[in-house]
Protein backbone atom coordinates (compact mmCIF):
# COMPACT_ATOMS: atom_id res chain seq x y z
CA UNK A 1 0.00 0.00 0.00
CA UNK A 2 3.01 2.29 0.33
CA UNK A 3 3.06 3.65 -3.19
CA UNK A 4 -0.68 3.86 -3.62
CA UNK A 5 -1.26 5.87 -0.44
CA UNK A 6 1.33 8.51 -1.28
CA UNK A 7 -1.27 11.27 -1.65
CA UNK A 8 -4.81 11.65 -0.24
CA UNK A 9 -6.14 11.35 -3.74
CA UNK A 10 -4.22 8.13 -4.12
CA UNK A 11 -5.52 6.83 -0.80
CA UNK A 12 -9.05 6.57 -2.24
CA UNK A 13 -7.73 4.65 -5.19
CA UNK A 14 -5.59 2.54 -2.89
CA UNK A 15 -8.58 1.59 -0.76
CA UNK A 16 -10.65 0.87 -3.86
CA UNK A 17 -7.94 -1.33 -5.36
CA UNK A 18 -7.14 -2.92 -2.02
CA UNK A 19 -10.78 -3.87 -1.50
CA UNK A 20 -10.88 -5.47 -4.91
CA UNK A 21 -7.62 -7.33 -4.35
CA UNK A 22 -8.26 -8.20 -0.70
CA UNK A 23 -5.03 -6.60 0.47
CA UNK A 24 -6.68 -4.26 2.98
CA UNK A 25 -6.98 -5.30 6.64
CA UNK A 26 -3.47 -6.79 6.56
CA UNK A 27 -4.37 -9.09 3.72
CA UNK A 28 -6.80 -11.05 5.86
CA UNK A 29 -9.94 -10.58 3.81
CA UNK A 30 -10.71 -12.62 0.74
CA UNK A 31 -10.48 -10.35 -2.25
CA UNK A 32 -12.57 -10.09 -5.35
CA UNK A 33 -12.36 -13.38 -7.25
CA UNK A 34 -12.48 -11.57 -10.57
CA UNK A 35 -8.85 -10.42 -10.31
CA UNK A 36 -7.53 -13.99 -10.20
CA UNK A 37 -9.73 -15.14 -13.06
CA UNK A 38 -8.88 -12.08 -15.14
CA UNK A 39 -5.11 -12.37 -14.52
CA UNK A 40 -5.14 -16.09 -15.42
CA UNK A 41 -7.01 -15.40 -18.65
CA UNK A 42 -4.83 -12.46 -19.66
CA UNK A 43 -1.49 -14.21 -19.10
CA UNK A 44 -2.72 -17.37 -20.86
CA UNK A 45 -4.02 -15.39 -23.84
CA UNK A 46 -0.70 -13.50 -24.04
CA UNK A 47 0.97 -16.93 -24.07
CA UNK A 48 -1.27 -18.11 -26.91
CA UNK A 49 -0.51 -14.95 -28.86
CA UNK A 50 3.26 -15.29 -28.28
CA UNK A 51 3.09 -18.96 -29.28
CA UNK A 52 1.37 -17.96 -32.53
CA UNK A 53 3.73 -15.17 -33.53
CA UNK A 54 6.76 -17.12 -32.24
CA UNK A 55 5.85 -19.91 -34.69
CA UNK A 56 5.50 -22.48 -31.91
CA UNK A 57 8.80 -21.83 -30.10
CA UNK A 58 8.65 -24.25 -27.15
CA UNK A 59 9.32 -21.66 -24.42
CA UNK A 60 6.26 -19.72 -25.65
CA UNK A 61 3.84 -22.52 -24.76
CA UNK A 62 0.80 -20.68 -23.27
CA UNK A 63 0.84 -22.57 -19.94
CA UNK A 64 4.54 -21.85 -19.40
CA UNK A 65 4.24 -18.18 -20.39
CA UNK A 66 1.11 -17.85 -18.26
CA UNK A 67 2.86 -19.28 -15.21
CA UNK A 68 6.05 -17.20 -15.49
CA UNK A 69 4.25 -13.98 -16.45
CA UNK A 70 1.58 -14.49 -13.76
CA UNK A 71 4.16 -15.00 -11.01
CA UNK A 72 6.16 -11.99 -12.27
CA UNK A 73 3.07 -9.73 -12.28
CA UNK A 74 2.12 -10.88 -8.77
CA UNK A 75 5.70 -10.24 -7.64
CA UNK A 76 5.65 -6.68 -9.05
CA UNK A 77 2.20 -5.95 -7.61
CA UNK A 78 3.22 -7.32 -4.21
CA UNK A 79 6.18 -4.93 -4.20
CA UNK A 80 3.93 -2.03 -5.21
CA UNK A 81 1.57 -2.88 -2.34
CA UNK A 82 4.47 -3.36 0.05
CA UNK A 83 3.76 -6.99 0.95
CA UNK A 84 5.61 -10.19 0.08
CA UNK A 85 4.64 -12.26 -2.95
CA UNK A 86 3.20 -15.20 -1.01
CA UNK A 87 0.84 -13.01 1.05
CA UNK A 88 -0.26 -11.02 -1.97
CA UNK A 89 -0.82 -14.24 -3.92
CA UNK A 90 -3.04 -15.63 -1.15
CA UNK A 91 -5.19 -12.53 -0.70
CA UNK A 92 -5.43 -11.21 -4.26
CA UNK A 93 -4.98 -14.12 -6.66
CA UNK A 94 -6.12 -17.23 -4.79
CA UNK A 95 -9.92 -16.54 -4.61
CA UNK A 96 -10.13 -16.38 -8.41
CA UNK A 97 -7.41 -18.96 -9.01
CA UNK A 98 -9.32 -21.45 -6.86
CA UNK A 99 -12.44 -21.10 -9.02
CA UNK A 100 -10.48 -22.03 -12.16
CA UNK A 101 -8.58 -24.71 -10.22
CA UNK A 102 -11.88 -26.33 -9.20
CA UNK A 103 -12.70 -27.07 -12.84
CA UNK A 104 -9.74 -29.49 -12.94
CA UNK A 105 -12.13 -31.90 -11.15
CA UNK A 106 -14.62 -32.34 -14.05
CA UNK A 107 -11.73 -32.01 -16.55
CA UNK A 108 -9.94 -34.98 -14.95
CA UNK A 109 -13.14 -37.04 -14.93
CA UNK A 110 -13.61 -36.20 -18.63
CA UNK A 111 -10.51 -38.26 -19.50
CA UNK A 112 -12.71 -41.35 -19.05
CA UNK A 113 -14.13 -40.46 -22.49
CA UNK A 114 -10.92 -40.84 -24.60
CA UNK A 115 -10.11 -43.86 -22.41
CA UNK A 116 -13.44 -45.50 -23.29
CA UNK A 117 -13.16 -44.58 -26.98
CA UNK A 118 -10.21 -46.99 -27.25
CA UNK A 119 -11.60 -49.59 -24.89
CA UNK A 120 -10.52 -52.23 -27.42
CA UNK A 121 -6.84 -51.46 -26.69
CA UNK A 122 -7.46 -51.38 -22.93
CA UNK A 123 -9.14 -54.79 -23.00
CA UNK A 124 -6.39 -56.42 -25.07
CA UNK A 125 -3.35 -54.93 -23.36
CA UNK A 126 -4.43 -54.41 -19.74
CA UNK A 127 -1.75 -56.77 -18.40
CA UNK A 128 1.05 -55.04 -20.34
CA UNK A 129 -0.31 -51.64 -19.24
CA UNK A 130 -0.31 -52.49 -15.53
CA UNK A 131 3.06 -54.26 -15.66
CA UNK A 132 4.70 -51.45 -17.66
CA UNK A 133 3.53 -48.88 -15.11
CA UNK A 134 4.71 -50.92 -12.10
CA UNK A 135 8.11 -51.90 -13.57
CA UNK A 136 8.61 -48.48 -15.17
CA UNK A 137 7.89 -46.70 -11.90
CA UNK A 138 10.27 -48.89 -9.85
CA UNK A 139 13.13 -48.36 -12.34
CA UNK A 140 12.38 -44.62 -12.42
CA UNK A 141 12.36 -44.42 -8.60
CA UNK A 142 15.93 -45.75 -8.44
CA UNK A 143 17.11 -43.26 -11.08
CA UNK A 144 15.29 -40.35 -9.42
CA UNK A 145 16.68 -41.34 -6.00
CA UNK A 146 20.29 -41.38 -7.20
CA UNK A 147 19.84 -38.26 -9.37
CA UNK A 148 18.49 -36.39 -6.34
CA UNK A 149 21.42 -37.64 -4.26
CA UNK A 150 23.90 -36.65 -6.96
CA UNK A 151 22.55 -33.09 -7.03
CA UNK A 152 22.97 -32.86 -3.27
CA UNK A 153 19.36 -32.82 -2.09
CA UNK A 154 18.96 -33.65 1.60
CA UNK A 155 16.78 -36.52 2.88
CA UNK A 156 13.68 -34.32 2.93
CA UNK A 157 14.37 -33.19 -0.63
CA UNK A 158 14.85 -36.75 -1.91
CA UNK A 159 11.68 -37.96 -0.19
CA UNK A 160 9.78 -35.06 -1.78
CA UNK A 161 10.94 -36.10 -5.26
CA UNK A 162 9.76 -39.73 -5.10
CA UNK A 163 5.91 -39.50 -5.25
CA UNK A 164 5.73 -37.01 -8.14
CA UNK A 165 4.40 -39.50 -10.71
CA UNK A 166 1.07 -39.57 -8.83
CA UNK A 167 -1.53 -36.87 -9.19
CA UNK A 168 -0.91 -33.96 -6.77
CA UNK A 169 -3.68 -34.94 -4.32
CA UNK A 170 -2.08 -38.39 -3.85
CA UNK A 171 1.56 -37.30 -4.06
CA UNK A 172 1.33 -34.71 -1.26
CA UNK A 173 0.14 -36.95 1.62
CA UNK A 174 2.60 -39.68 0.55
CA UNK A 175 5.46 -37.16 0.59
CA UNK A 176 4.52 -36.22 4.15
CA UNK A 177 4.27 -39.89 5.15
CA UNK A 178 7.80 -40.70 3.91
CA UNK A 179 9.36 -37.62 5.48
CA UNK A 180 9.27 -35.22 2.53
CA UNK A 181 7.95 -31.69 2.14
CA UNK A 182 4.44 -31.74 0.62
CA UNK A 183 4.83 -28.22 -0.85
CA UNK A 184 7.98 -29.27 -2.74
CA UNK A 185 6.17 -32.36 -4.05
CA UNK A 186 3.22 -30.26 -5.21
CA UNK A 187 5.70 -28.01 -6.98
CA UNK A 188 7.28 -31.07 -8.64
CA UNK A 189 3.87 -32.27 -9.88
CA UNK A 190 3.10 -28.86 -11.37
CA UNK A 191 6.55 -28.62 -12.97
CA UNK A 192 6.07 -32.14 -14.45
CA UNK A 193 3.00 -30.88 -16.29
CA UNK A 194 4.66 -27.64 -17.39
CA UNK A 195 7.79 -29.48 -18.61
CA UNK A 196 5.79 -32.08 -20.56
CA UNK A 197 3.63 -29.31 -21.99
CA UNK A 198 6.66 -27.32 -23.13
CA UNK A 199 9.08 -30.12 -24.12
CA UNK A 200 6.71 -33.06 -24.76
CA UNK A 201 6.70 -32.90 -28.57
CA UNK A 202 10.47 -32.55 -28.71
CA UNK A 203 11.10 -35.37 -26.19
CA UNK A 204 8.72 -37.72 -28.02
CA UNK A 205 10.59 -37.07 -31.25
CA UNK A 206 14.09 -37.22 -29.72
CA UNK A 207 13.57 -40.55 -27.91
CA UNK A 208 11.40 -41.94 -30.74
CA UNK A 209 8.73 -42.74 -28.21
CA UNK A 210 5.84 -42.66 -30.66
CA UNK A 211 7.14 -45.82 -32.40
CA UNK A 212 4.95 -47.61 -29.89
CA UNK A 213 1.67 -45.68 -29.43
CA UNK A 214 0.77 -47.55 -26.22
CA UNK A 215 4.15 -46.76 -24.66
CA UNK A 216 3.94 -43.13 -25.76
CA UNK A 217 0.54 -42.72 -24.10
CA UNK A 218 1.57 -44.41 -20.86
CA UNK A 219 4.79 -42.38 -20.66
CA UNK A 220 3.09 -39.03 -21.30
CA UNK A 221 0.32 -39.76 -18.77
CA UNK A 222 2.84 -40.81 -16.12
CA UNK A 223 5.26 -37.94 -16.60
CA UNK A 224 2.81 -35.13 -17.38
CA UNK A 225 -0.38 -36.06 -15.48
CA UNK A 226 -3.58 -34.77 -17.13
CA UNK A 227 -1.63 -32.21 -19.19
CA UNK A 228 0.41 -35.13 -20.56
CA UNK A 229 -2.88 -36.84 -21.45
CA UNK A 230 -3.99 -33.79 -23.43
CA UNK A 231 -0.62 -33.86 -25.21
CA UNK A 232 -1.02 -37.59 -25.89
CA UNK A 233 -4.48 -37.02 -27.39
CA UNK A 234 -2.85 -34.78 -30.00
CA UNK A 235 -0.70 -37.75 -31.07
CA UNK A 236 -3.69 -40.06 -31.54
CA UNK A 237 -6.65 -41.76 -29.89
CA UNK A 238 -4.61 -44.74 -28.62
CA UNK A 239 -2.02 -42.46 -27.01
CA UNK A 240 -4.77 -40.38 -25.39
CA UNK A 241 -6.56 -43.42 -24.07
CA UNK A 242 -3.35 -44.93 -22.67
CA UNK A 243 -2.33 -41.65 -21.02
CA UNK A 244 -5.75 -41.40 -19.34
CA UNK A 245 -5.47 -44.89 -17.89
CA UNK A 246 -1.86 -44.19 -16.84
CA UNK A 247 -2.97 -41.19 -14.75
CA UNK A 248 -5.27 -43.41 -12.70
CA UNK A 249 -3.15 -46.54 -12.40
CA UNK A 250 0.20 -44.82 -11.75
CA UNK A 251 -1.38 -42.90 -8.87
CA UNK A 252 -2.48 -46.15 -7.25
CA UNK A 253 0.90 -47.78 -7.99
CA UNK A 254 2.66 -44.81 -6.30
CA UNK A 255 0.29 -45.26 -3.34
CA UNK A 256 1.49 -48.86 -2.97
CA UNK A 257 5.15 -48.79 -4.13
CA UNK A 258 6.67 -45.52 -2.89
CA UNK A 259 6.29 -45.97 0.93
CA UNK A 260 8.11 -49.36 1.00
CA UNK A 261 10.71 -48.01 -1.46
CA UNK A 262 11.42 -45.09 0.91
CA UNK A 263 11.80 -47.50 3.83
CA UNK A 264 14.14 -49.70 1.80
CA UNK A 265 16.32 -46.69 0.93
CA UNK A 266 16.46 -45.69 4.60
CA UNK A 267 14.57 -42.43 4.13
CA UNK A 268 12.41 -43.05 7.20
Amino acid at each position, binding site marked *: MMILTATPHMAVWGKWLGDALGTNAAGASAGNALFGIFLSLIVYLIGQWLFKIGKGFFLFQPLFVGMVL*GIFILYLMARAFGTDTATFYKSAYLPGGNIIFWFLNPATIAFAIPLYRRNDVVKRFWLEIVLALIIGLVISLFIIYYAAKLFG*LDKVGIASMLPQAATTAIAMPIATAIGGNAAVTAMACILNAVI*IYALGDWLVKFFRINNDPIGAGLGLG*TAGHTVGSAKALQLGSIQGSMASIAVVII*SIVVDIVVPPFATMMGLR
Partner: protein
Amino acid sequence: MAANKDVEKVDLAEEKPASPILIQMGIFAAILFVSSLISPLFPASFPVPTPVIGLVILYALLASHIVKLRNVEKFGDFMISLIAFLFVPSGIQLAASLDILKTQGVQIVVVVLIATIVLLVVVAYTAAFLIRIRKNVFHRNVDVDDD
Protein backbone atom coordinates in the same frame (compact mmCIF):
# COMPACT_ATOMS: atom_id res chain seq x y z
CA MET B 1 -10.53 -55.61 -32.84
CA ALA B 2 -13.99 -57.00 -32.14
CA ALA B 3 -14.38 -54.80 -29.09
CA ASN B 4 -13.49 -51.79 -31.17
CA LYS B 5 -16.21 -52.60 -33.68
CA ASP B 6 -18.63 -52.85 -30.75
CA VAL B 7 -17.77 -49.39 -29.55
CA GLU B 8 -18.18 -48.00 -33.04
CA LYS B 9 -21.42 -49.83 -33.56
CA VAL B 10 -22.82 -48.33 -30.37
CA ASP B 11 -21.93 -44.86 -31.63
CA LEU B 12 -23.27 -45.33 -35.12
CA ALA B 13 -26.38 -47.30 -34.28
CA GLU B 14 -27.76 -44.54 -32.11
CA GLU B 15 -27.92 -41.48 -34.22
CA LYS B 16 -29.76 -39.68 -31.51
CA PRO B 17 -28.56 -36.13 -30.97
CA ALA B 18 -26.13 -35.27 -28.16
CA SER B 19 -27.73 -34.60 -24.79
CA PRO B 20 -28.32 -30.93 -23.89
CA ILE B 21 -25.24 -29.39 -22.32
CA LEU B 22 -26.96 -28.88 -18.95
CA ILE B 23 -27.77 -32.60 -18.78
CA GLN B 24 -24.13 -33.38 -19.59
CA MET B 25 -22.94 -31.03 -16.85
CA GLY B 26 -25.47 -32.60 -14.50
CA ILE B 27 -24.00 -36.06 -15.13
CA PHE B 28 -20.50 -34.74 -14.36
CA ALA B 29 -21.78 -32.99 -11.22
CA ALA B 30 -23.54 -36.13 -10.01
CA ILE B 31 -20.41 -38.25 -10.55
CA LEU B 32 -18.26 -35.65 -8.75
CA PHE B 33 -20.68 -35.58 -5.83
CA VAL B 34 -20.73 -39.37 -5.43
CA SER B 35 -16.92 -39.46 -5.76
CA SER B 36 -16.52 -36.83 -3.06
CA LEU B 37 -18.57 -39.07 -0.76
CA ILE B 38 -16.42 -42.13 -1.55
CA SER B 39 -13.01 -40.41 -1.35
CA PRO B 40 -12.95 -39.92 2.49
CA LEU B 41 -13.69 -43.64 2.96
CA PHE B 42 -10.11 -44.46 1.93
CA PRO B 43 -7.58 -44.54 4.81
CA ALA B 44 -5.13 -41.64 5.15
CA SER B 45 -2.24 -44.00 4.31
CA PHE B 46 -3.88 -44.87 0.96
CA PRO B 47 -5.35 -41.63 -0.37
CA VAL B 48 -7.52 -41.74 -3.51
CA PRO B 49 -8.68 -38.24 -4.50
CA THR B 50 -12.16 -37.36 -5.76
CA PRO B 51 -11.38 -36.77 -9.48
CA VAL B 52 -9.54 -40.11 -9.77
CA ILE B 53 -12.60 -41.93 -8.36
CA GLY B 54 -14.79 -39.88 -10.70
CA LEU B 55 -12.73 -40.94 -13.74
CA VAL B 56 -13.11 -44.60 -12.77
CA ILE B 57 -16.88 -44.17 -12.18
CA LEU B 58 -17.46 -42.46 -15.55
CA TYR B 59 -15.39 -45.13 -17.31
CA ALA B 60 -17.39 -47.89 -15.58
CA LEU B 61 -20.69 -46.18 -16.52
CA LEU B 62 -19.57 -45.87 -20.17
CA ALA B 63 -18.25 -49.44 -20.32
CA SER B 64 -21.52 -50.82 -18.90
CA HIS B 65 -23.52 -48.64 -21.38
CA ILE B 66 -25.47 -46.99 -18.56
CA VAL B 67 -24.12 -43.65 -19.79
CA LYS B 68 -23.73 -43.28 -23.56
CA LEU B 69 -20.96 -41.30 -25.21
CA ARG B 70 -23.53 -38.82 -26.56
CA ASN B 71 -24.57 -38.05 -22.96
CA VAL B 72 -21.14 -36.77 -21.90
CA GLU B 73 -18.96 -36.32 -24.99
CA LYS B 74 -19.61 -32.67 -25.80
CA PHE B 75 -18.93 -31.29 -22.33
CA GLY B 76 -16.09 -33.75 -21.68
CA ASP B 77 -14.19 -32.90 -24.85
CA PHE B 78 -14.69 -29.22 -24.09
CA MET B 79 -13.19 -29.62 -20.59
CA ILE B 80 -10.22 -31.56 -21.99
CA SER B 81 -9.57 -28.82 -24.56
CA LEU B 82 -9.31 -26.37 -21.64
CA ILE B 83 -6.86 -28.42 -19.54
CA ALA B 84 -3.76 -26.29 -20.19
CA PHE B 85 -5.62 -23.13 -19.17
CA LEU B 86 -7.07 -24.82 -16.07
CA PHE B 87 -3.47 -25.54 -15.00
CA VAL B 88 -2.49 -21.85 -14.98
CA PRO B 89 -3.54 -21.31 -11.31
CA SER B 90 -1.50 -24.39 -10.31
CA GLY B 91 1.51 -22.90 -12.08
CA ILE B 92 1.02 -19.51 -10.47
CA GLN B 93 0.67 -21.31 -7.12
CA LEU B 94 4.48 -21.53 -7.19
CA ALA B 95 4.41 -17.83 -6.25
CA ALA B 96 3.51 -19.01 -2.73
CA SER B 97 6.60 -21.24 -2.48
CA LEU B 98 9.23 -18.94 -3.95
CA ASP B 99 11.14 -19.10 -0.65
CA ILE B 100 11.60 -22.89 -1.02
CA LEU B 101 13.13 -22.20 -4.42
CA LYS B 102 15.53 -19.70 -2.85
CA THR B 103 17.30 -22.33 -0.73
CA GLN B 104 17.48 -25.45 -2.93
CA GLY B 105 15.65 -24.13 -5.96
CA VAL B 106 18.02 -24.86 -8.82
CA GLN B 107 18.76 -28.41 -7.66
CA ILE B 108 15.05 -29.17 -7.19
CA VAL B 109 14.13 -27.86 -10.63
CA VAL B 110 16.97 -29.85 -12.24
CA VAL B 111 15.98 -33.05 -10.42
CA VAL B 112 12.30 -32.57 -11.40
CA LEU B 113 13.36 -32.03 -15.02
CA ILE B 114 15.40 -35.25 -14.93
CA ALA B 115 12.58 -37.12 -13.16
CA THR B 116 10.03 -36.01 -15.77
CA ILE B 117 12.19 -37.20 -18.66
CA VAL B 118 13.08 -40.45 -16.83
CA LEU B 119 9.41 -41.25 -16.10
CA LEU B 120 8.40 -40.54 -19.71
CA VAL B 121 11.20 -42.53 -21.33
CA VAL B 122 11.40 -45.47 -18.89
CA VAL B 123 7.64 -46.10 -18.82
CA ALA B 124 7.34 -45.75 -22.59
CA TYR B 125 10.27 -48.10 -23.28
CA THR B 126 9.10 -50.62 -20.69
CA ALA B 127 5.66 -50.76 -22.33
CA ALA B 128 7.20 -51.09 -25.81
CA PHE B 129 9.45 -53.89 -24.49
CA LEU B 130 6.55 -55.80 -22.90
CA ILE B 131 4.50 -55.51 -26.08
CA ARG B 132 7.45 -56.84 -28.09
CA ILE B 133 7.60 -59.83 -25.70
CA ARG B 134 3.90 -60.45 -26.33
CA LYS B 135 4.56 -60.38 -30.05
CA ASN B 136 7.79 -62.40 -30.22
CA VAL B 137 7.47 -64.81 -27.29
CA PHE B 138 3.73 -65.46 -27.25
CA HIS B 139 3.25 -64.79 -30.98
CA ARG B 140 0.14 -62.74 -30.44
CA ASN B 141 -1.11 -60.10 -32.79
CA VAL B 142 -0.18 -56.64 -31.50
CA ASP B 143 -1.46 -54.53 -34.38
CA VAL B 144 -3.76 -51.72 -33.37
CA ASP B 145 -5.52 -49.52 -35.87
CA ASP B 146 -4.12 -46.06 -35.45
CA ASP B 147 -5.85 -42.90 -36.50
